[in-house]
């Protein structure tokens, strides 16, 4: 292995480099006073998601997630309930709401199935679907796979396929075991850090939110109604006035009915875009 132009080469993240001048100015002892015993100094997080104040925040290592989310982030938007926090970017893991009091440092995050990673911190509230969130992250890592090593190249693709099956109502209970089996094989045998961490969101979500996966599979239902393919839109005949607005707005013309008579959605053609639900003035459309 050789560095740039055959010389020893140091490659580090910008954040690491940014710490160097401070350490050189004030000394290592000063730096070590900040943080926990195994994680020194401060950490910059990119706080995002359903918190009031988003942006870059710098906190001493060891600060709890609760402090970051509620004190710095100002709590959740619209006062909603916290569901989970995804730390470490798309390769990190999701931390359930009941674990937000642990002090954030390298070891603690790893012990609960997540990681420091890129310093990303995405706050999810009760209206976020954990299955589609993990699917979103896996889509990213699948795209980022360079294609050199087999586990990451083929494995992330298969995991994503399984998640797509689950979110579209074609999942089976064995799929959960497959996800875990594949995920562990990818983590254990990939060539670089991307593959070694790519299954993390899925594996941690399965650990803390298995029930939500099971509802998607067994009941073909998404509790947060985020997985549009699992949502059914129906017209409540008692409430429908037959104003025809939904029928006119439906992009695939799958709503039928006469003027001033209750309308009906032809489910086999519905693309679940939700337009009818949004435009109905009489709350006559039900989303299940």
């Amino acid at each position, binding site marked *: 292995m050789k560095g740039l132009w055959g010389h020893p080469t140091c490659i580090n993240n910008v954040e690491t480099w940014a710490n160097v001048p401070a350490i050189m100015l004030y000394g290592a002892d000063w730096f070590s006073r900040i943080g926990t015993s195994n994680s020194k100094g401060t950490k910059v997080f990119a706080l995002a998601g359903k918190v009031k104040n988003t942006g870059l925040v710098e906190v001493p290592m060891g600060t709890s997630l609760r402090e970051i989310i509620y004190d710095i982030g100002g709590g959740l938007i619209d006062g909603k309930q916290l569901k989970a926090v995804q730390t470490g970017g798309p390769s990190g893991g999701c931390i359930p709401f009941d674990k937000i009091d642990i002090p954030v440092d390298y070891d603690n995050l790893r012990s609960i199935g997540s990681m420091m990673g890129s310093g990303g911190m995405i706050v999810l509230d009760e209206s976020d679907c954990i299955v589609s969130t993990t699917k979103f992250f896996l889509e990213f890592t699948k795209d980022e796979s360079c*294609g050199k*090593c087999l586990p990451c190249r*083929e494995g992330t*693709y*298969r995991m994503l396929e399984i998640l797509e099956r689950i979110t579209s109502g074609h999942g089976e209970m064995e799929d959960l075991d497959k996800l875990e089996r594949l995920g562990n*094989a990818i*983590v254990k*045998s*990939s060539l670089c850090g991307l593959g*070694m961490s790519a299954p993390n969101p899925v594996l941690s979500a399965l650990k803390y939110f298995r029930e939500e996966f099971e509802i998607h599979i067994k009941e073909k239902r998404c509790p947060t109604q985020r997985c549009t393919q699992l949502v059914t839109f129906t017209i409540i005949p008692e409430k429908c006035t037959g104003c025809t607005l939904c029928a006119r707005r439906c992009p695939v013309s799958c709503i039928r009915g006469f003027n001033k008579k209750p309308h009906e959605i032809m489910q086999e053609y519905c693309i679940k875009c939700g337009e009818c639900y949004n435009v109905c003035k009489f709350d006559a459309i039900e989303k299940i």
Partner: protein
Amino acid sequence: MKYINATIDGMPVSVLEGTTIMEAADKIGAHVPRLCYHPFLSTEGACRICVVEVEGMRNYLPACATAITEGMNIKTNSPQIRQTRRDLVELLLDNHPKSCLTCDRDGNCELQNLAYKLGVRERLFEGDRKRHPIEDSSVSLIRDAEKCILCRRCVRVCSEIQGVHNLSQLYRGFDTVVAPAFEAPMDDSVCIKCGQCINVCPTAAFIEQDATELVWAALDNPDLHVVVQTAPAIRAAIGEGWNLPPGTPSTGKMITALRRLGFDGVFDTDFAADLTIMEESHEFIERVKKGEKLPLITSCSPGWIKFLEHFYPEFIPNASSCKSPMQMESTLLKTYYAEKMGIDPEKIFVVAVMPCVAKKYEARRPEHYLKENVPHTDAVLTTRELIWMIKAYGIDFLNLPDGEFDNPLGFSTGAGVIFGSTGGVMEAALRTAYEMITGEPVKELEFTDVRAVEGLREATIKVGDLDVNVAVANGLNNAKTILEKVKSGEKQFHLIEIMACPGGCVAGGGQPLVYAGDYVYPLYPELIRKRQGALYTIDERKEIRKSHDNPYIKEIYKEFLGKPGSEKAHHLLHTHYEAKLPRGIK
């Protein structure tokens, strides 16, 4: 060098610093399964099938790419590791066409073999599969990206052994594909058609263009006089098709099998090899006398010739203008033989059995046509294709009686036979040139200085008062080394033999594939040495071992060609080359 102590599966090992886990495990008989690994190519570490458990490490480590460190405690087996390996192979199968039963490599596929050995008995993760069209623009070989498992052995052999750098991986992730730059068709790339990608491919992602249909049809056509010629290297390897050990000479059985297939004449490319020596020695002596266009570089290997045209066009004047033995033989079959037998050359169908896929390309070069639509060589079969044809015809090869080649174009000397090995053309040329220059018989026929399996050999041979500096290179990266030496003026050579394939024709891209599994690899010097051995044994047993002593060569010059270098010989037996520069560069 320092010794390192470690434990593998509970057994203590002591190995030299730098030894990989795989090498150490192999030594104690713990064969870690592997796929992308190839001992003569750089370490890729891409397939991860060879993962092992190392105490204290969070993840598994690839045995092929991890050097042992002091005190390492390694486990090559555990239920979890076996499970992971199975899962990985299953992932490969999930993205692979299910066409094993109709695949060229059925029964000799490393992926198939591995899946069986590791016990992949179910398919849990099946889903979408990559889709790519079969790329068959090249006359020599087919690239089937759907069968590619991205081990990149072909990429490595193409750059590290052949120095062609034609193949690389394009796109990324699941879309990754191995192809020439910009996914150009193989025919429009710098591919030299050596076929080493076929030899190292664990599956059938690279395979030769099939010519058997053409040959079956010709054999079935009563209007055609179908003749066949076989290259020297075929007889050293054809037996492997029936599990004979590599290097079992099978000339007689091969001839009989060809006759049973229905060929009207069975000739020997070795005859033309003798003729090549006559022409090339003449050319060499002329150039030495005039002191121009030296070193003379051999031109028998069509892969090398295409490499020359692409990458070293400045050396084109140095290349011998002699056609390759295959083309000489074919030309004579359609001129001399046709005349002698009173057959219309257009009614003669010449099949050449070659250890080579570049020969399929050479046969279609425009220089090698008698007239429009009438090539000198009508079809080129690889050794593999011939083996299959013999099997398909139901010929019991192993119990065939020995046959003899037809004459006059089937008689060869020992010098013609050794053409199939690296250093063989050089040795054959030296036997004749020596006598032509000094007028004295060679005392020691075996020029062992030029015999080798290594890719590069230099020697100085005393020919009378002349010190002849010669070099033998096989594998085109080695050819590069020699040519760069010549270019820089570091070394003055008189004669250079270059063969595209490592080991020469005996290890060509059309030779029988090494049996997949059991950790034997193509390019193994041991295998090459055995096949070479067969040729040197045949040479040793020949009564006539110098090309110019071949009575039929004497006869053809007397009756037909005149003398070496004559106008007629020049017209029929010599060719020319053209620089193949990137488009837009003149």
